[in-house]
């Protein structure tokens, strides 16, 4: 089976999962108490007006018909209209998803570039001081609430740094997007300025969200490095007198990356969830805050649309991991489905 067929097959396997996600969110939004229309119109809506809006959004029909219609529209790429923002849900998602992906991407980059050296050094110098330090860092990292890290970072680098000269200062809120129009940003004249400003703004949220990734990746990297270093072929290489450094670089490192990739795929959804908290702390308008707004305002279609989007990211992430796996490890064939 070729790569293309395999990809298509995996995508098709994702369909039942997507359907399940739609079904669960539909049932959950269906059971939410309260009435979105009355939230929309204020405390005492006119009956006529309420009925019109209900009809306009299709809320006056029975459940199964609405679910059927929702699925039908979904197949045509229509996620419905947001009751709260009064724009199509897709518009809102197109606006917000890149922001969250930027944040999550940055945290993954941070996590990977810190975790790989930490994990490798830790495995190489097992039970030495370096290893202990890196293990403690990883342990504290996986145990710290990301939003608390965010609060502490804001206190130190945004507030306290104003009074302390040697502390670098970082902005706490008002994320500048790297693709924003330079004309709309104060004091920025070129794309380069905007990107520099954006990086400055991303620093604290990335640290906040990325610490957990760093810690989790370090643990995986360390244990998979240790496992590989224990393998027969590494022992053989050692017996042949191959230098430890060469073993590490040429033989062990490459093979130790597979578990890390698997974990990365699975952590994607976790970090999307974590982004809800980070976005709240740093007041970033991404998917996380969108879904909180949607839930608080009983915005049915927005809740379903955003949850579905998270599901899509998960399914795509798992497939990308599978493909990467096959790319990195030639022994993995495209034959096995799961």
């Amino acid at each position: 089976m070729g790569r293309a067929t395999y990809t298509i097959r995996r995508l098709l396997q994702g369909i039942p999962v997507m359907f399940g996600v739609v079904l669960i969110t539909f049932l959950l939004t269906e059971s939410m108490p309260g009435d979105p229309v009355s939230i929309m119109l204020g405390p005492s809506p006119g009956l006529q007006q309420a009925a019109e809006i209900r009809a306009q959004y299709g809320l006056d029909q029975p459940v199964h018909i609405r679910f059927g219609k929702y699925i039908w529209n979904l197949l045509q790429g229509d996620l419905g209209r947001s009751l709260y923002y009064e724009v199509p849900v897709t518009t809102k998602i197109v606006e917000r998803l890149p922001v969250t992906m930027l944040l999550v991407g940055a945290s993954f980059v941070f996590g990977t570039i810190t975790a790989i050296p930490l994990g490798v050094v830790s495995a190489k110098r097992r039970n030495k001081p370096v290893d202990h330090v890196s293990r403690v860092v990883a342990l504290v990292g996986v145990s710290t609430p990301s939003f608390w890290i965010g609060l502490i970072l804001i206190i130190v680098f945004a507030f306290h740094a104003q009074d302390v000269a040697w502390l670098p200062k970082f902005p706490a809120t008002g994320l500048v997007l790297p693709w924003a129009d330079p004309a709309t940003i104060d004091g920025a004249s070129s794309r380069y300025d905007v990107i520099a400003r954006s990086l400055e703004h991303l620093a604290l949220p990335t640290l906040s969200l990325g610490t957990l990734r760093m810690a989790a990746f370090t643990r995986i990297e360390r244990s998979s490095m240790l496992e590989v270093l224990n393998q027969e072929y590494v022992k053989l290489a050692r017996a042949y007198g191959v230098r430890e450094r060469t073993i590490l670089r040429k033989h062990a490192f490459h093979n130790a990356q597979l578990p890390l990739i698997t974990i990365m795929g699975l952590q994607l959804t976790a970090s999307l969830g974590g982004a809800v908290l980070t976005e709240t702390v740093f007041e970033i308008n991404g998917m996380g805050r969108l879904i909180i707004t949607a839930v608080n305002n009983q915005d049915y279609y927005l809740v379903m649309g955003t949850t579905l989007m998270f599901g899509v990211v998960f399914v795509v992430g798992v497939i990308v991991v599978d493909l990467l796996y096959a790319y990195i490890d030639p022994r993995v064939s495209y034959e096995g489905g799961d």
Partner: protein
Amino acid sequence: MSTTIEEDAQESDVEDATAGEPEARVGLRYTLSQLKRDPTAKVGGYIIAFFAVIATVAFIDTNVLAWVGHKYWFAETFWVNPVRDPATTQILRPPLSLTNDLHPGAPGDWNHVLGTDHRGRDILVRLFYGTRIAMMVGIVATGIGTVMGVVVGAVAGYYGGWVDDALMRAVEVLYAIPFLVLVIAFMVAFGRNLLFAMIGVGIRTIPVFARLIRSEVLSVREEDYVEAARASGVTNRKLIQRHVIPNSFAPVLVQATLQIGINILVIAGLSFLGFGAQPPTASWGQMLSVSRGYMLPAPWFSVWPGLAILLAVIGFNLLGDGLRDALDPRIQNR
């Protein structure tokens, strides 16, 4: 003929039960001795014991003592100087709010070791009462997830075929929705309180245990003694109950310990977003949420609840790691 088979079945059943038990008991004892020797597990155990004691006292204080009329003995006795009427020595302030209006939002001093919050409430006392919620919710939610996950995973793994497919697809759906998002939607649908927070978090934890137990079951299912038991006519249900689940117990215990830590983090996050315990009930996440408004004038208010969460989660992680080392001989020397 039929009687001999039945006798055989009974015999082997009895044999199996007696043969399995002493070994399991030795295993448990061995595990405990290993655990005692493991310094990380010990530290984790002590941390959890510390929080457990605080949680228990706070639970008795707010539930039992409050019920018999001694309201908030814990807070009054140890951590706050309540304002008393000089004549009657009666406490003037309602102990519930633990108020000391002399120092609203003050950093730590000898009366309030960790300082007071924006309403002048002692932060340490609130942390203690928050411990109760964190421990209870973390453990109950994990318990719900573990029991349901083990059942789902065992059934899926044991029966295989379409049952397995259907259950595992359902579990994958739960996995596909981010933790916080699913629990928030669940809570908005059913109730914005701690009960549904626990149930929601528990449901979202099902996939972890279902997958774990399923893979264990798949390997246990092939063992000779299970096959022998099946051949001698033991029913599927009995097999799962008597052999398959007990044999998959070790990894579940490890995962459950680690999961309590994760669930404490998630519930703190939920409370931070306003979906957990509602004020005035003190919970760590909700304290952090309130502290967001006072980060500039009262930074200590943000520091302590986070440290409490961190310490509790570290405790469960250390114990979980120690358990894993003790229960899994393959990675003993790591």
